[in-house]
């Protein structure tokens, strides 16, 4: 992050105390399941962990829900409202535990917005600037799956595919499933680019859960070097 593009308090000192780990990937990539398992594992080993999910600010998500229901959102307002929601979540939920020295696990971060908003046609630099207040995570795990796996998992779940998830607002296809495939393919291409530009660490998430778990833990272990456990914080 450049000195010039900053709207929030300085981030440099933050990761020196806490740790920020982000999981990213397509819907149905298994990232949320893995994030929860990771949180349990870290807690059981005595670390102070905080888990944060996207889209959890009540006030802003109210506006987003309303906009989606009424079909009022354009790519630009969609991008701005989600950035607002993210900023609220960052200021309220992520920064305080991070500064207090927690191991913070985030289910989705600004990278979701980078790929989603640019897939909707927003200018990539504009989107990046919007999120320049967000501290750079210590590591970003990218749960890489083929689009077909994402779709199969989505269809197998009870949760229906939503209008915006399928990118129906882009009029790629009148068919929900086909639109979903095309939109998610665009998102996947976006993530693949971020592997190079933003050092996202790919995790082969098409593998069985136990194998994915092993990959995740081995990527997380280096972050725990020198990171204090709860007892040492209280007594030492």
């Amino acid at each position, binding site marked *: 992050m450049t000195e*010039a*593009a*900053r*709207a*929030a308090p300085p981030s440099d000192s933050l990761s020196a105390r806490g740790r920020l780990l982000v999981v990213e990937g397509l819907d149905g990539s298994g990232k949320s399941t893995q994030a929860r398992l990771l949180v349990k594992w870290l807690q059981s080993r005595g670390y102070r962990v905080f888990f944060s999910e996207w889209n959890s600010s009540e*006030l*802003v998500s*109210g*506006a987003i829900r*309303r*906009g989606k229901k009424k079909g*009022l*959102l*354009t*790519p*630009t*307002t969609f991008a*701005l*409202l989600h*950035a*607002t929601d993210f*900023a*609220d979540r*960052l*200021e*309220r939920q992520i920064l305080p535990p991070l500064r207090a020295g927690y191991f913070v696990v985030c289910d989705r971060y600004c990278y979701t917005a980078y790929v989603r908003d640019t897939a*909707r*046609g*927003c*200018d990539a*630099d*504009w989107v990046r*600037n*919007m999120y*320049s*207040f967000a501290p750079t995570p210590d590591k970003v795990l990218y749960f890489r799956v083929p689009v077909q796996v994402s779709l199969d998992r989505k269809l197998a779940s009870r949760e229906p595919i939503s209008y915006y998830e399928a990118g129906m607002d882009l009029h790629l296809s009148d068919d929900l499933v086909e639109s979903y495939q095309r939109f998610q393919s665009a998102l996947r291409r976006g993530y693949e680019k971020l592997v190079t530009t933003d050092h996202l660490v790919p995790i082969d998430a098409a593998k069985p859960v136990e194998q994915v778990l092993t990959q995740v833990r081995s990527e997380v272990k280096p972050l725990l070097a020198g990171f204090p456990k709860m007892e040492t914080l209280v007594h030492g």
Partner: protein
Amino acid sequence: MVRTYGTRIPNLPKRELSGHLIVVEGADGSGRTTEVELLREWLEIQGHPVVDTGLRRSTLVSKQIDRAKLGHTLGATTMALFYAGDFADQLENKILPALSAGSTVLADRYIYTLMARAIVRGATREYAQQLYAFAFEPDLIVFLDARTDILLHRAIAKYGSLDYWESGMDLSLSRDRFESFFAYQALLKKEFDWMAKTYGFQRVDANRTPLQVHRDVKALVAALFGKRVRVEIPGETPPRVTPEPEVSGLGSVASGNS
């Protein structure tokens, strides 16, 4: 037009827009709203269809912003982005269709107020400029420039008190609202002076009466439309719109209900 400040909005029409975008900027108490009313009247008499717009009027988020302000619940970055979303909604759903239809859009404040507010709350100028780079470049930006002591007296004459947000109380500049008002307005002024240069504001001395201000503004608008404007003789019958009670500076007696 339509030219933006650097970033293209997706789905923007490629054709030229025939309407004009006129922005009136200025602090609370600069006579901005009065001037917008007078200008609207004058433009309509000349046969220009006018659509007016302001801040925090979008159907998308204005209610949520009001709620957030009441509870003081959102942080500075969040508020800045929320306002940007509100603005984008109006730009795409109100300003753009009006300009396409050939109307003159009269904006009672625009991105500049939003940028100034974000900057004095900690955003960098570069961040604010990039954030609003999707906004259309106006054909004319009128900046009603009034001294802070005059703004103070107009605020007291109108409301009988100083507003929490217009005094920048959320910035913790001072616990004293009167002191905070001066400090906050000074910070905003610095940003407006910078933007005046950067964005080519047409500065109008707003320390004067509404009709004197209106005469200068009309000349600027007439130049935009390539018309000659009749110079009014002072004391001439004022336009039909009733101007706000005039406060002529420090010596005036403030009347209010608190």
